[in-house]
């Protein structure tokens, strides 16, 4: 069983410099969150490259290694990339390093041929030599089996096509399914027996050539051998070509499907354009407002100084005004008192003054005369009054906080514009890569490929017919030779019959093994499917000869048309069942597996994740699955969580997230 422990990647795609990913232990799930175009698929490719040395791009094309290296590092003169994977397999610990670097003589690599790739593997602390290394890598995982462990939505779609129209699927995938199920153990042995039959036929031929009686039949037999070899070669060639072109055809169909999505991308780009325009116009309005405000900025800066002076001047001047009022009142009183003293009567009510009242009046006059003199000595300077008036006339209602707020808003909006423009550039690149001429080329290529497949299939049929006729002819010759009664020929004929009988046994064994495995896959796929589906009326899945699965209603009827979501669930069920029945057990890494599913299906898959494989790593975008929901659903079964954070369009970082119960 393969258990991944840790991955170190260096300058791989947007992952600039050295970055680490620790996988969850068996029984737990590792989740990596990341928005679109941050590097989730690249991370899946980094894991795939670390295990099998393959980088797969869109349409299942091999990606260029030159373009896989980090662009920012390349701009700084550092080319190439490297992955190191620590894993356990069959009781041993491995450290597997793969990478590529520019060839010694190349200073500025321009394409893949300017690089050399390297692989180093350490098993239990011992560096393996080239032969041991190849053997170990072959045993751990082959590119054919890796597709069942490391997959994205595009690969899942390939299985959906297998489920929808198995006849159109390449032999390669069916062969891969049988390989992961262990069928080649028997088919390989059967092929050896077939080779042995041919060897015995050669022995018969040699023996027949020795006798005059049988010599002419032996000559015809030799000619038949040659025709058979030729026909077998042709069949092998045509089958390989049909399979290759079949894969190419599928890849072109997917490519055309993507080109059909062009209008969605164009609409997204138009929305972005509008958003940028709106932001720019808002920025322009804010800049105008700031220009207006900045005309008074100088006086707001001096606000504390002006306020301080105004307050202190107001205090001083205010006291003087109070004194001035008192002085006026006192003068008025003094005048009235003096008038009363002179007339001997009250100046207000004209009542005659008594002696005691005259004394009080005299004392009051003395006090008023004194206060009037003191007040005179405290009167302010004229310039102070001028300054006080100036201080009150200066506008100091500072709008600095408002200005500051506007400046912060402008900063945020500029960042938003830069981000939107970057996204727009990405979309422009994506759109230009799907231009109309590309679509025309792809359609014409598809047409040519279909014609080529047609021609090849006809040639294949002819060669198969030729082979079948030759086999019949050889059988006939064999019977004739046996009838003639040459003892040596008779001996080899007995050997041939024994070999044929054994071949029939193995033929039967292969049929029975396939039937058995199909039943097991059907049973396990049904079990997983019923856990994942949200439709209670679905009864089971039914498998056909080509591993295609159909949904069967509880009433026994096959559901003829399936939704995209249902197909997605069936494909996941098939993968889980293949995993369960596989001769190789390993982890699964899924990129954006919930894209087309509703929340009910997503929830069911999340709950079943730990049962789908021993070790699960999920690469998801946030809108695909909410983090709180994931934590709640998996309840302590999350081993590690990461977030792919954007630094720039060409630089992302893997940031570990903390959480309860994480390893």
């Amino acid at each position, binding site marked *: 069983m393969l258990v991944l422990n840790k991955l170190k990647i260096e300058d791989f795609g947007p992952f600039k410099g050295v970055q680490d990913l620790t996988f969850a232990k068996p029984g737990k799930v590792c989740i990596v969150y990341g928005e679109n175009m941050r590097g989730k698929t690249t991370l899946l490719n980094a894991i795939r490259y670390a295990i099998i040395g393959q980088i797969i791009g869109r349409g299942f094309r091999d990606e260029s290694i030159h373009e896989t290296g980090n662009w920012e590092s390349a701009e700084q003169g550092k080319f190439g990339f490297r992955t190191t994977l620590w894993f356990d397999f069959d009781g041993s610990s491995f450290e597997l390093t793969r990478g590529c670097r520019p060839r010694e003589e190349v200073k500025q690599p321009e394409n893949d041929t300017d690089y050399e790739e390297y692989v180093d593997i350490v098993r239990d602390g011992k560096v393996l030599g080239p032969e041991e290394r190849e053997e170990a890598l072959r045993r751990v995982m082959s590119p054919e089996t890796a597709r069942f462990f490391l997959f994205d939505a595009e690969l899942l779609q390939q299985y959906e096509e297998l489920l929808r129209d198995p006849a159109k699927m390449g032999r390669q995938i069916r062969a891969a399914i049988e390989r992961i199920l262990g069928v080649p153990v028997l088919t390989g042995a059967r092929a050896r027996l077939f080779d042995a039959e041919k060897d015995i036929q050669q022995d018969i031929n040699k023996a027949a050539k020795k006798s005059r009686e049988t010599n002419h039949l032996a000559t015809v037999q030799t000619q038949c051998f040659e025709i058979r070899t030729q026909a077998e070669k042709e069949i092998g060639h045509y089958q390989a070509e049909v399979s290759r072109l079949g894969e190419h055809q599928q890849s072109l169909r997917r490519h055309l499907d993507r080109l059909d999505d062009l209008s969605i991308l164009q609409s997204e780009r138009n929305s972005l354009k509008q958003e940028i325009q709106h932001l720019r116009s808002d920025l322009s309005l804010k800049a105008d407002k700031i*220009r207006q405000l900045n005309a008074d900025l100088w006086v707001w800066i001096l606000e504390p100084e002006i306020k301080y002076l105004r307050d202190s001047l107001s205090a001083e001047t205010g006291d003087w005004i109070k004194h001035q009022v008192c002085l006026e009142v006192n003068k008025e009183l003094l005048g009235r008192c003096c008038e009363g003293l002179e007339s001997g009567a009250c100046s207000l009510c004209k009542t005659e003054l008594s002696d005691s009242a005259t004394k009080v009046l005299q004392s009051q006059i003395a006090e008023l005369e004194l206060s009037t003199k003191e007040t005179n000595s405290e009167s302010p300077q004229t310039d102070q009054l001028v300054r006080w008036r100036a201080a009150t006339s200066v506008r100091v209602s500072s709008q600095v906080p408002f200005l500051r707020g506007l*400046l912060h808003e402008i900063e945020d909006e500029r960042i938003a514009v830069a981000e939107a423009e970057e996204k727009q550039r990405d979309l422009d690149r994506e759109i230009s890569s799907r231009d109309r001429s590309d679509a025309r080329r792809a359609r014409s290529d598809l047409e040519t490929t279909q014609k080529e497949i047609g021609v090849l299939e006809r040639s294949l049929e002819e060669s198969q017919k030729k082979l079948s006729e030759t086999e019949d002819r050889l059988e006939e010759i064999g019977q004739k030779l046996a009838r003639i009664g040459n003892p040596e020929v008779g001996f080899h004929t007995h050997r041939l019959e024994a070999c044929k009988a054994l071949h029939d046994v193995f033929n039967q064994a292969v049929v029975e093994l396939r039937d058995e495995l199909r039943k097991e896959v059907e049973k396990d796929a049904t079990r997983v499917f019923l856990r994942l589906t949200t439709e209670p009326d679905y009864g089971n899945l039914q498998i056909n000869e080509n591993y295609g699965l159909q949904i069967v209603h509880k009433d026994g009827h096959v559901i003829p048309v399936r939704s995209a979501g249902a197909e997605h669930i069936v494909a996941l069920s098939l993968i889980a069942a293949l995993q369960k029945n596989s001769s190789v057990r390993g982890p699964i890494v899924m990129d954006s597996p919930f894209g087309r599913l509703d929340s009910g299906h997503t929830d069911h898959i999340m709950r079943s994740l730990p049962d789908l494989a021993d070790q699960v790593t999920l690469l998801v975008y946030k809108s695909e699955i909410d983090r709180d929901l994931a934590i709640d659903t998996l309840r302590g079964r999350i081993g590690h969580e990461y977030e792919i954070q954007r630094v720039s369009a060409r630089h992302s970082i893997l940031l570990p997230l903390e959480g309860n119960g994480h390893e």
Partner: protein
Amino acid sequence: MSNAQDKTVIAVTPETEEILKRVEDSASFGDRMDVAKLAMAVAIKKNLAPAKSSGRNTRWNVGGFDKDVAVNVTLRLLYPSEAQPYRLAEDLIEAGAKYLNDLLQVDGQFHLLTFLKDMCPEEDRTTEADKTANG
């Protein structure tokens, strides 16, 4: 105090003119005159000695420079013994421009937000307090 001999135009040296232009170009100012007043305020705020430099070129008429006489009033308020506020304004602009030039040395740009932090720290504290109060 009389201002009979005070200046009727504001003049600046070519060096100061260049600094004012750079600030105007890298921040949002509608007129270079606004930057000149900002330089004057910086000199006052930072207690810089008025710079008595020579070789100045006439730039603005005081009527246009100080339409609402706010500069005149402010300088009279802050410098009560100064009889010629516009002459003082010129010298303060020269001193303040040198300070602005130091700010430009960091990356060639005038960062208004950083400048406000330096010139209006009270505002910053209030904002922080407000932020805390608002949770």
